[in-house]
Every structure is written in C-alpha cells, then in structure tokens.
C-alpha cells in the first residue's frame, strides 16, 4: 500500500503522454490455436482459417487468420495504453495483407496528436519481417491529470 | 527402448483419489452451444436449444472449474488436470511420449444435468497396463471421473482410457 498522501497520477494520464510516444506492443504468435479459439467465441469457422488446403484453393500459401482477430489485437493494444479510466473513442483499420499461419503478429501504435484529453494514434499490425498486415488510426480519451 | 512403464508406484496407485473439482453453475447458453456443435451442421434438437436439460455427454468443466483441490497428500501444486490425473503429483515416472491418444470411454449415467446445476468431479486412478503395438510399447492409462450434482446425486461415472507411446 502506498502511504503517500499526494494524489497519484494514473500511468495513462494525459500529462504523461507526448506526440511520438510508442504504445507498448501487443504480440501474439498466430496459428490454429488462436484462430480456432476466436472462431469458437465469434462463430467464425472459416475453412481458409482452419485448413491449409482450403486457403491454397483460394490462392494463399497456407491458412490465414481473421481480420476480426487483428481488430481485437489492436483493441487489446489500445486498452493497455488507456488504462482502466480511459476510453476508446474510434478505431479505423484496413486489412492489407493476410496473417498467415505461424506468423508472429505485433500490434503497434504511435501517438500522433493530443487535443485536450483526446489522443490520436496511428496503429498497425505487422508480421515477423515487418510487413504491415493491418494499418489504421484510433482516437482515445485519457484521464486528465 | 522402454522395457516397462509399470513400476510399483504406478501399480499401487490404483484406486487413489486425486482431485475434486467443482463446476460453475451450468448455463443455458453452454448447453445450447454444446448441442449446436455436436449436431452441426444440422440443427440441434429444440429441447437442447431450450436448455431443458444437458446432453449426457455435456462437459460441465469445459471452461474451467470454479474450484479445484488436490486430494493427494503433500500435493500443493494446484495444477488443474482436467482430462486425467496429476501423474507427476502421484510420483509417476516423467514419461516422454510421442503421442497421447483417447483410447476409449466407459460411462454410467445417473440423473440428468440441468441449468443451474453445480457439478462436483472426483477423479481417481484406474488401472495402468501396457502392451506392444505397432508404435512400440504402449502405456494404457485409466482415470475415473465421478460426477455428482449439488444434491449429491450421481450424474455419471466415466472411465477414460488413454494410450500413450
């Protein structure tokens, strides 16, 4: 227990944020383990996400994951950044490349603007070699202080 | 080449009570999803969609026990072993297997499971045997799972057989 009487400033408070700050990345190695679990909760049992052969029939080298799961990863990234008192106001993402099996996907974000307690963020997911899979922007609100 | 898996510790463990798990209350949506999965792609019977009761094969522990306690003296590992028993805590050898397969199941049913039921699962050690197969010496494991409901009525008693090589 912290016995200090000084009011503590949340780690995610707006006063601690600067343009150019990098968000703590959110990283997952992706494979059937992740995708089938996601399908389980989203009823999203897509052959090309469950079966290499099905993906190859669609012209991909192997099975690939759901854009919806990348969307979730981006939200996980943002939630960790804003902390318990922040809010995600808006997220806008485009899916540019398939998330192929066995790729390690990292969701990144960079602070691009601060307006009052509203923070603009560029965000993206990338695979092991740096190719971007999903790119987008977000607006979040942070607690003042 | 393994000559035998069966040492005295393994042989003498038969009948040992290993763990007690208590489920969360069974939810209607869990019954519904179960039925949809096991009848898919055709529709599940309406009685399961309405969650009148759970299919006999329903697993009330599919998404984790609400509580778990080892019944093995000196075992404070708190390792939840859902499909089987905690062989490490029993002092069994740390076998390295290439494959572990579901060999079979034997189940005797009591009363049905309904929405809101809280199930207790007590697991115990069955018989461990071995035999030669096309993949070499195979260990045949048995774990016994006894489910009762909140009224202490028997729901089912299942013997699960595993094949490891």
């Amino acid at each position, binding site marked *: 227990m912290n016995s200090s009487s000084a009011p503590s400033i949340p780690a995610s408070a707006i006063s601690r944020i600067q343009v150019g700050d990098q968000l703590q990345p959110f990283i997952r190695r992706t*494979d*059937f*383990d992740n995708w*089938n*679990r996601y*399908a*389980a*909760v989203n009823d999203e*049992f897509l*052959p090309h996400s*469950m*079966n*290499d052969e099905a993906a190859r029939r669609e012209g991909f080298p192997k099975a690939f994951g759901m854009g919806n799961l990348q969307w979730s990863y981006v939200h996980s990234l943002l939630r960790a950044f804003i902390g318990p008192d922040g809010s995600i106001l808006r997220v806008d993402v485009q899916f540019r490349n398939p998330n192929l099996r066995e790729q390690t996907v990292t969701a990144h974000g960079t602070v691009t603007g601060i307006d009052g307690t509203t923070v603009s963020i560029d965000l993206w997911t990338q695979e092991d070699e740096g190719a971007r899979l999903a790119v987008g922007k977000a607006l979040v609100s942070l607690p003042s202080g | 080449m393994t000559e035998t898996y069966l040492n005295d510790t393994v042989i003498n463990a038969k009948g040992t009570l290993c763990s007690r798990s208590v489920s969360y209350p069974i939810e209607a949506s*869990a019954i519904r*999803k*179960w039925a*949809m*999965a*096991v*009848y*898919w*792609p055709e529709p599940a*019977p309406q009685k399961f969609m309405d969650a009148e009761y759970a*299919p*006999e*094969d329903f*697993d009330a522990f*599919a*998404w*984790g026990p609400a509580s778990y306690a080892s019944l093995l003296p000196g075992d404070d590992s708190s390792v939840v072993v859902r499909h089987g028993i905690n062989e490490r805590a029993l002092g069994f050898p740390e076998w390295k297997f*290439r*494959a572990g*397969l*579901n*060999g*079979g*199941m*034997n*189940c*005797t*049913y009591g009363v049905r499971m309904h929405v809101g039921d809280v199930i207790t699962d007590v697991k115990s050690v069955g018989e461990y045997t071995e035999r030669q197969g096309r*993949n070499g010496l195979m260990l045949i494991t048995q774990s016994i799972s006894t489910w009762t409901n909140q009224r202490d009525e028997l729901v089912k008693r299942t*013997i699960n*057989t595993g094949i490891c090589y």
Partner: protein
Amino acid sequence: MTVKVGDELPTFTRETGFANWNRYAAVNDEFVPIHMDDAAGEAAGNGGAFGMGNLQWAYLHNMLRSWIGENGEILSIEVQFRSPNVKGQTVTAKGVVTAIDGDVISLDVWTEQQEGTKLAPGSAKVKMGK
C-alpha cells in the same frame, strides 16, 4: 414401439473434418494440435489431423437419444477408439439390439467410416421412453 433382439437403430451420420472438430473444440475447450493441424496429426502417426474420440462419443449419444425418445434413459455406454477419424470421412453411428431384460435394452453400438471400417465399437444399455 415393440423392440426385439436384432433390431437396428436409425443411424446418425456426419461428414467429418475441421468444421466439426473445431466447433466441438469450441464447446469442450479441446484445442489439441493433432485435431487442428495436419502436421501435428502426421507427427502422431495418423497421416494428418484426426477428430476427437469425444465427438464420436457424442454422435453415439445423439443416435441413442433419438431412438429412446423423450423420456428414455441412457443407462450406460462404453466404447473403444480403434481407428482414427481422419478428415473427409463420413462417420455413421450405428446400433443393434442384443438383449432385452425387463425394460433394460442392451445394444452393440459403434461408429464406422464410409467403407464400413469400425472406428469406435462398444455397447450400451438404455430404457425406452414411455
């Protein structure tokens, strides 16, 4: 319905593959590589991914429930998993009455693939619904 020894039960049939197995994994939290990934199934010596014994178990229950009717009871069932249920197989659950003792009916039950090879043979005891 009058039941006699030798009666065959209406069958329960499903074409099996990832679509079934992953849905089953979804409700049983059974996300096991040998059931999701051909490479893992092959490493286990089965030529590719294969389905859960637990799902065959469910198919046998589906067949029995349908036959015994609303108030019937499945008293006991046992099966052995003899052959893997590999991708693309059509699995049929079957049963035949072997004995009748009062209101308890004994059955041989099994699942088989499309060429008749038994995957999971076993036996069951049931009571018919009134």
